[in-house]
């Protein structure tokens, strides 16, 4: 009942009669939902089976570039593109899973980090395929039934649909045999195996699922912005997504939504505030505030991570 109501309210958002600022609201809302999809995907590995994935942005990049190269210039129906992207993400999730399957927590974190750096390195250097540091520009909107999406509210509905799909999948999985097996692996992998859970299989499943979520989000991102560039997939993105699931409390869908609701607007506000500060600093001739202070909004993520781990390791919700 409440869920239906929330969905109805969300569906009505693009039609709030507030005039021009609606574009800003829609963009922020789209961004928020995009990060929710990403966080839900990362949560499958970090929250469900308890492995710290520091390279999630790699799948995001794979999704974005796959989508950009497939349908950036051609008229392939988006549904087909979307499935290809998801399968491609899945494939890389499994490929990355093969060497990391036997690793313990901190090794896993480092290898995943190395993986995403390698992906970005390849994107930057294989100019014949990805145009390297020039990036792919002018990506067309997703085309559906002969119509190409381009307006803000169309993208809003598309990501709302993807998010709803993601939440349904996660919710269904959470309370199923698979979800319980994953929770058992998170709590104690050895004990779970002793109880007859095939840990390798469930871990692989988690890697593949998580990767396909990331790729789907990346595909949307590329079409939404119309650009794919290696700089969009910086390590910080992985950390931002990680912060979202940590603030909300790892493992729960409502926690992730809460985390995104808290963190994404905060970073937007911080960016605006720091930009104003740096402009004021330049105009007032204060030299100790460097113009790079805008990028320092990530400082707050570091503080969040350390303090959350010390004070509330299970998230704000619990």
């Amino acid at each position: 009942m409440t869920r239906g109501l929330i969905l109805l309210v969300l569906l009505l958002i693009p039609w709030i009669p507030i005039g021009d600022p609606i574009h800003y609201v829609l963009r922020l809302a789209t961004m928020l939902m995009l990060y929710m999809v990403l966080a839900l995907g990362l949560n499958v590995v970090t929250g469900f089976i308890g492995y710290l994935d520091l390279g999630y942005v790699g799948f995001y990049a794979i999704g974005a570039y796959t989508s950009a190269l497939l349908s950036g210039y051609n008229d392939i129906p988006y549904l087909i593109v979307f499935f290809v992207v998801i399968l491609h993400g899945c494939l890389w999730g499994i490929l990355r899973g093969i060497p990391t399957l036997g690793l313990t927590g901190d090794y896993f974190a480092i290898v995943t980090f190395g993986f995403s750096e390698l992906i970005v390195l390849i994107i930057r250097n294989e100019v014949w395929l990805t145009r390297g540091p020039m990036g792919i520009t002018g990506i067309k909107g997703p085309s559906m039934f002969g119509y190409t999406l381009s307006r803000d509210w169309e993208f809003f509905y598309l990501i709302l649909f993807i998010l709803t799909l993601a939440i349904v999948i996660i919710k269904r999985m959470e309370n199923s045999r698979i979800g319980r097996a994953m929770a058992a692996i998170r709590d104690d992998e050895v004990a779970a195996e002793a109880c007859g859970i095939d840990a390798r299989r469930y871990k692989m499943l988690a890697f593949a699922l998580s990767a396909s979520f990331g790729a789907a989000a990346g595909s949307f991102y590329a079409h939404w912005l119309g650009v794919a560039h290696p700089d969009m997939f910086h390590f910080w993105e992985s950390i931002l997504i990680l912060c979202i699931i940590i603030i909300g409390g790892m493992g729960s869908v409502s926690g992730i939504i809460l985390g995104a609701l808290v963190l994404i607007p905060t970073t937007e506000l911080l960016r605006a505030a720091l930009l104003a500060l740096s402009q004021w600093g330049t105009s007032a001739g204060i030299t100790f505030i460097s113009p790079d202070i805008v990028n320092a909004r990530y400082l707050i993520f570091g503080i969040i991570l350390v303090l959350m781990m010390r004070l509330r390791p299970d998230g704000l919700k619990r």
Partner: protein
Amino acid sequence: MNWQEVLDRSSLFLLQLTNGLTLGSIYALIAVGYTMVYGVLELINFAHGEVYMMGAFIAYHLVSVYDVPFFAAFAIALVICSAFGIFLEYFAYRPLRDARRLVALISAIGMSIFLQNLALIIWGAQQKSFPYKKLPSLFSSMAFTLGDINLSYLQVFIFLLSVVLMFVLHYIIRHTKTGMAMRAIAQDAKAASLMGINLNRVISFTFAAGSFLGAVAGVLVGVYYNAIWPTMGYMAGIKAFAAAVLGGIGSVPGAILGGTILGVAEAFGAGYISSAYRDGIAYAIMILVLIFKPAGLLGKSVVQRR
């Protein structure tokens, strides 16, 4: 193939080798810090790369702003970084020592991000370099020249300093009481503390020593490449970690060997295969080692711990 060609090729080879050894000794210095902390705490100190970056920045700041002589600035940076290493452990890791592994790991990453951005605020994203005139003039002169190969005193200095520090470290670990305590904790922390070893003090010492070596590497890199920037720690940190994994994490000789091999491999890879993928070589080596020989070259294979 005529003689000239052979000479050219061999001089290119030697050039890469000297570059690789210089780079390798720097990686080894950082890798030892990772491996020591992993030995006693079984935790990857993600902020270690940031200590390395801070060492470089502090020395740079002292030299360029306060006009401190280079070697004095070097020493001050080392002391500050060692103290900082102790603080880091006290603030971010000690309260979480009994928590789940994931929790401590996330706290470590949080510290690393915090420090990187702190440096970004203080010093800006622009690359900095040591003022040329304030460096010892010996650094820029050549120790010897053979054909096309120039070996600078700086390279010799980096290599010798690393070797000396490694021997000192070896002595501390093998022949002092603190070193013995470190080895005991690495074997079994609980039993060690029951035998009357002050766990906190030894762990603090480990962090101080690791940060000291990391800061040495940071300053040396800052001089060698003439570039210091806020995110230099994260790339170097990951590469050094790869070196520690290659040598077998937890083993100090392994970290030295791994660092040297990685440095040489990187120099040769950049010279002969592709300089664009220079940074990828470390990741590739790390992933291959983890697949085929997870214990590393000199590490002992242990039962999976968690």
